[in-house]
């Protein structure tokens, strides 16, 4: 699964640390999600989407392959 968290985070002028604090996780987790190393739970995905003011399906793209 790919995501556009970095793009939307930069648009909102948020750092990884700020996004992590707002979503209740660590900066390392945000970094791992951005690098597609870790897939977040539904709850965290919705929380991040809400903070970044986008819909979940705009933020996360399912890899067809």
């Amino acid at each position, binding site marked *: 699964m790919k995501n556009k968290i970095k793009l939307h985070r930069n648009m909102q002028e948020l750092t990884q640390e700020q996004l992590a604090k707002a979503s*209740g996780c660590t900066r390392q987790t945000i970094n791992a999600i951005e690098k597609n190393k*870790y897939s977040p739970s539904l709850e965290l995905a919705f929380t991040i989407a809400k903070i970044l003011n986008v819909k979940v399906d705009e933020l996360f793209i399912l890899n067809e392959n």
Partner: protein
Amino acid sequence: MTVSYKRSLITCILFGFLFIFLSVYFYIVGPQAYLDTKIHFVINSIVFVLTFGAFITMLIFTNNKDYVIDERDAYVQRKSYGIGLLVSLIYVFLISIILFMDNRYTGTVNAAWLWFLAYSTFAFSYFITSLVILFYYNRV
């Protein structure tokens, strides 16, 4: 570096040292001499208490308000505990079966082996679990 990662790294170093120390000490002294002389138990117990004391101290010092366990930490720990348990069981199985193969004709095993197996399993399980946690943190 998250607090969970830091804790796993220190745990890995401490219990890795303890496991190697117990194994090397037991190998050099040998089971019979180990059982005959009380000083070996005392030396090993002191090292064990010191290592465990350092572990408890590390837990207290890293338990600050920055310590957040998020879902990724929980995911890594859940996977690692399962693998750690399995590897520890394999360790106990291997030591037990080697002892059986070596002593099956005499029918007796030196009791010092049981002491070694008990304490080394304790150190090994902590060491291997924290090692697997570190591995998973570097992967996800």
